[in-house]
């Protein structure tokens, strides 16, 4: 919330003489690297992304390839060996699939859904928010009423209702997540733009008779970006968690797209008989992903928010 009153970072705090010497992004980078925890988060996040991208090459087994799976290997505890000599480091699930491979592929699906929905929500929400702030008047009031209305309901409830209407499916989950998230971007970008639009450079752009889209996207947008980026990181983490929750409840992704949430849901049935690994390890992967994103997001918020720089 405090992110909403950000000033353009480059103009704050840097003395005029120092402005040329240190490029703003480099200053940001060194500020980011100050926190060890944030660096750990960033490294973790990069590793997770690499695993997700290269899942087919890293996984010991292709969980979609039925010829590689043996039902005789089902529900093996972590570290056990199949008779072909392959070691299941994280055990196997109810169908005899290697958990480690399942998690690698699951990460891929979870991250894709989370990032895609975050990306679309960012574009839609930010455009709406900036336009609302720039044009003002009735349009702004109407848009912000809708945003307030939606934000007064918890995300999970909105998503639940939408998916009850839409049904299951990858596209439907992404659509529901975008609808859930756009309002956060709209509110954040609007409050940043409200501060910016009164500044001289906007007035200058206007007096040059630049077109409205050009002013909004070339002049207003870059200066409103810092708080939007902060919200963006947090929202991607939220989207991943929300998708996992919905898939766990059985109203999210279809069983043909086994995201981490679905893997955990499969393990739920075996949990009470003590076979913890089927839902424990996918959950751990989900947790690590969310923690890594949140650590990065926390540090970004701290360095991009001039109010905290004392």
């Amino acid at each position: 919330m405090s992110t909403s009153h950000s000033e353009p970072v480059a103009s704050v705090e840097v003395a005029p003489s120092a402005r040329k010497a240190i490029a703003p992004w480099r200053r940001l980078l060194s500020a980011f690297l100050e926190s060890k925890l944030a660096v750990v988060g960033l490294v973790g996040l990069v590793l997770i992304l690499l695993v997700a991208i290269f899942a087919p090459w890293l996984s010991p087994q292709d969980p979609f390839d039925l010829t590689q799976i043996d039902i005789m290997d089902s529900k093996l505890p972590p570290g056990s060996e199949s008779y072909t000599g392959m070691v299941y480091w994280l055990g196997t699930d109810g169908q005899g699939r290697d958990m480690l491979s399942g998690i690698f592929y699951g990460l891929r699906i979870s991250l894709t859904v989370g990032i895609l929905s975050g990306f679309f929500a960012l574009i839609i929400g930010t455009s709406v928010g900036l336009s609302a702030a720039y044009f003002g008047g009735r349009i702004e009031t109407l848009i912000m009423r809708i945003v307030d209305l939606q934000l007064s309901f918890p995300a999970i409830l909105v998503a639940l209702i939408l998916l009850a209407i839409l049904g299951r499916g990858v596209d439907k989950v992404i659509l529901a997540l975008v609808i859930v998230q756009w309002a956060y971007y709209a509110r954040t970008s609007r409050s940043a733009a409200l501060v910016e639009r009164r500044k001289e450079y906007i007035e200058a752009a206007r007096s040059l008779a630049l077109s409205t889209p050009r002013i909004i996207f070339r002049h207003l947008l870059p200066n409103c970006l810092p708080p939007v980026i902060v919200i963006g990181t947090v929202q991607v983490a939220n989207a991943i968690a929300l998708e996992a929750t919905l898939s766990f409840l059985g109203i999210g992704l279809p069983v043909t797209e086994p995201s981490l949430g679905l893997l955990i849901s499969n393990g739920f049935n075996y949990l009470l008989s003590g076979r913890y690994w089927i839902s424990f390890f996918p959950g751990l992967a989900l947790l690590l992903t969310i923690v890594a994103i949140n650590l990065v997001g926390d540090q970004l918020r701290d360095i991009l928010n001039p109010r905290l720089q004392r």
Partner: protein
Amino acid sequence: MSVFILRRLMQSLVLLCVMTVIVFAGIYAIGNPIDILISADASQEEYDRAVRALGLDLPLWEQYFVFLGNLAQGDLGKSFVFNEPALQLVLSRLPATLELAFAAMLISITVGIPLGMWAGLRPDGIAGRSIMAGSILGFSLPNFWQGLMLIMIFAVFLQWLPAGGRGPTASFLGMESTLFSAEGWSHLILPALNLALFKTSLVIRLTRAGVRETLLLDYVKFARAKGLSTGRVIFVHVFKNILIPLVTVIGLELGSVIAFAVVTETIFAWPGIGKLIIDSIFVLDRPVIVAYLIVIVLMFIVINLVVDILYSVLDPRVRLADMKS
């Protein structure tokens, strides 16, 4: 003050109307109920008769008013599965959810505020830092997985607590609740804890941020300069000021706790409205889905209204600003 409340009431009524339109449009979008209700080999004549009997031949706006009229009489149709009036069904499950939500809020307030104040007063101490690290973890833990892990640890491995279900209820002052029986508590504690963890983290962060910001303000310095004891400064002067954001958020979060109960109830087989809605979505029990939506929307509107009024009582500036606009 009464003008303020009246205005908020009017706004809530408008909101309620808007929500009924959305819910109505939502049901309309799900599809034609005739296809579910009537057998596939029915003749065209029977089909037309059913359409007329259900009022589906009327124009859309007329159907909406019929829906509104029925709603005003509390009639939302019968559940396809339970063959009970849908609204009654939802209301009969509500106490179990409220019980869970209140237990969770109680935990998050009694644990969160003291920890948050500690972390705010000593932000650089080991305890303060660990509290904050813990709260980041609390935010990041996926709620459903955390529930599974609680079951795994306390019900499967340690076997201290039951894995699910609602315990026996006992009656106290005319209220029927598991809170009044020992076995009921043993069933309640895990789901309540699961629901509370996220909110506790939130309360910790809010309290800490509030304390840190307030400590820098002039009036606190002045209170200190007057020679008031540290305890009085913290518990009277600082505490009063951080209450405003806390009350708002705790109030608003009550609604989200009820919404999030969907997950916890599913995991712990807790027979509340959350489990009911998930089960109903699976079998497309439309009247129950609609009844749930209406009840939850109404609850949110009431909660928002109460929070707004409380807020204006706590902070007169809000009231004044609203009057001017």
